């Protein structure tokens, strides 16, 4: 048994999906970095919404609309509190991290010019690369890459050398989805601010494991997807400092984001509405709040501590398999293990594991530049959540051994 203050067996009962079978085997769900599972406590909030107060929000005088609006705004406040955000209107509801990042990247179009530089880390998700490439194409700014080393850590010395008064923006994920590396974002933010650059931290992978204090971090933008932290699909947030959000132009046009519309001229609404055009994912936002409640009730310290135990145990056990190589061996990691077995394609391992009921992700994990760096087609990625167990790690290890025997 691993040490933890959490009662994992009781927690697992909150997730009915964990009791299902796959190909006749009990499901072992180790694809949490792609999407985490959703507890009954959150699903019940969704059902309750549709059964009791489903209505379009804002400006409605009737009770249902009022109840939905209040619940949605309470969710915004829960998010504000969770991330220690200064003002609730600095929380912009989006459809997820990808949407959040694109909102910022599009908004910066008029702020950049030829000669400006944009720094992006070598271990980004495509969602945190492509929008900046598009931005640089539009503006003539140059995209520069903060390199990483073989352990999958950013080379901070090189980062500091890349910084100059030309640097206008720095983008980096808090945690790499492909490697699990926790990046030194405090240092990244501080360095960027010294040269007057703004920083966006992609928190998609971090938020399920690390409770960040965004005011203390002094970060300019931070992005989160609910579906990676026990919440529903189709909702996330962009945190932005008020001053930045006031400066950025609106992203999408539509209802709610305007103060006054005539065919001649339109004036935009105040924050957060300026960036929340159209009917949002109302139910999703409310359920996101419930997901934070759920995780906070377990406690992020307890979650992180237990996940770290799983990580250490799994790393040790997997490394006992000959020919197995782990990509991403940073000192500071979340519970993600990317690996390959020499001479075996990750897809083959994933397929055999699936037959054994074990769900892992295989491929480039939307991070091709990392694969290019290691000169591999992809990896097998097992990612652990607080509801996973030591026994499941053992099954993974046995499964990998069996796959290896079949495939080699």
């Amino acid at each position, binding site marked *: 048994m691993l040490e933890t203050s959490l009662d994992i067996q009781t927690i697992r009962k909150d997730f009915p999906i964990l009791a299902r079978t796959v190909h006749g085997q009990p499901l072992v769900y180790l694809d949490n970095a792609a999407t985490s599972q959703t507890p009954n406590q959150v699903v019940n909030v969704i059902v309750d919404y549709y059964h009791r107060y489903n209505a379009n929000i804002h400006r409605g*005088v009737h009770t249902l609309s*009022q109840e939905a*609006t*209040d619940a949605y*705004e309470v969710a915004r406040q829960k998010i504000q509190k969770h991330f220690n955000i200064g003002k609730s209107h600095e929380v912009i509801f989006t459809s997820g991290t990808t949407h959040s990042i694109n909102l910022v990247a599009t908004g910066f179009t008029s702020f950049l010019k030829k000669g400006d530089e944009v720094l992006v880390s070598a271990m980004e998700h495509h969602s945190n690369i492509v929008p900046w490439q598009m931005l640089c194409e539009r503006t003539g700014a140059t995209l520069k890459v903060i390199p990483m080393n073989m352990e999958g850590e950013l080379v901070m010395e090189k980062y500091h050398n890349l910084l100059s008064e030309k640097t206008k923006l720095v983008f980096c994920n808090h945690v790499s989805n492909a490697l699990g590396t926790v990046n030194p974002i405090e240092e990244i933010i501080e360095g960027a601010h010294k040269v007057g650059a703004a920083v966006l931290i992609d928190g998609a992978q971090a938020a399920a494991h690390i409770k960040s204090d965004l005011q203390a971090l002094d970060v300019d933008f931070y992005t989160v997807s609910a579906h990676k932290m026990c919440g529903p699909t189709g909702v996330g947030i962009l945190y932005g400092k008020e001053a930045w959000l006031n400066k950025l132009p609106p992203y999408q046009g539509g209802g709610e984001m305007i103060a006054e519309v005539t065919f001649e001229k339109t004036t935009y609404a105040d924050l957060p509405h300026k960036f929340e055009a159209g009917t949002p994912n109302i139910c999703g936002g409310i359920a996101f709040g419930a997901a934070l409640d759920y995780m906070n009730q377990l406690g992020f310290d307890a979650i992180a501590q237990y996940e770290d135990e799983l990580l250490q145990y799994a790393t040790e056990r997997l490394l006992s398999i000959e020919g197995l190589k782990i990509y991403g061996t940073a000192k500071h990691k979340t519970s993600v293990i990317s690996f390959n077995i020499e001479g075996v394609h990750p897809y083959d391992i994933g397929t055999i594991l699936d037959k054994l009921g074990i769900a892992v992700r295989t491929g480039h994990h939307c991070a091709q530049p990392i694969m290019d760096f290691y000169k591999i087609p992809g990896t097998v990625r097992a990612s652990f959540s607080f509801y996973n167990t030591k026994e499941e790690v053992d099954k993974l290890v046995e499964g990998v051994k069996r796959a290896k025997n079949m495939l080699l």
Partner: protein
Amino acid sequence: MNIQDIQEEIVDEFSMFDDWMQRYEYMIELGKSLPLIEEQYKTDDNLIKGCQSKVWVHAELDGDKLVFTADSDAIITKGIIAILIRAFSNQKPQDIIDANTDFIDEIGLKEHLSPTRANGLVSMIKQLKLYAVAYQTQLK
């Protein structure tokens, strides 16, 4: 009368009603008797944001007391602001700043107290208090 006394008086008046209809009818009455704002003060500056109906509030000093006048294009909104003005007008800025607003709840308008409410009751209270703060500084 001080703000506390007036609020208690209002609560007493409303406690005579059995149902919401009577309460709303009374509120509409109050709205109709609201000391109207002069047309020249119905400016965008005096418009309170966040209401579905338009609400203008004007404030001016009378000695060391603050006098509010207001108007709205919706009669229920006018009734609500009439109640607020009755409680807060002709009072010292500091007293307005310090006043609590629990009486709103007690007269059965609790549902209007949500900050997201389209009638903007919360915005109105905030605006009255903002005026008080501004004139308080002026008085010093």
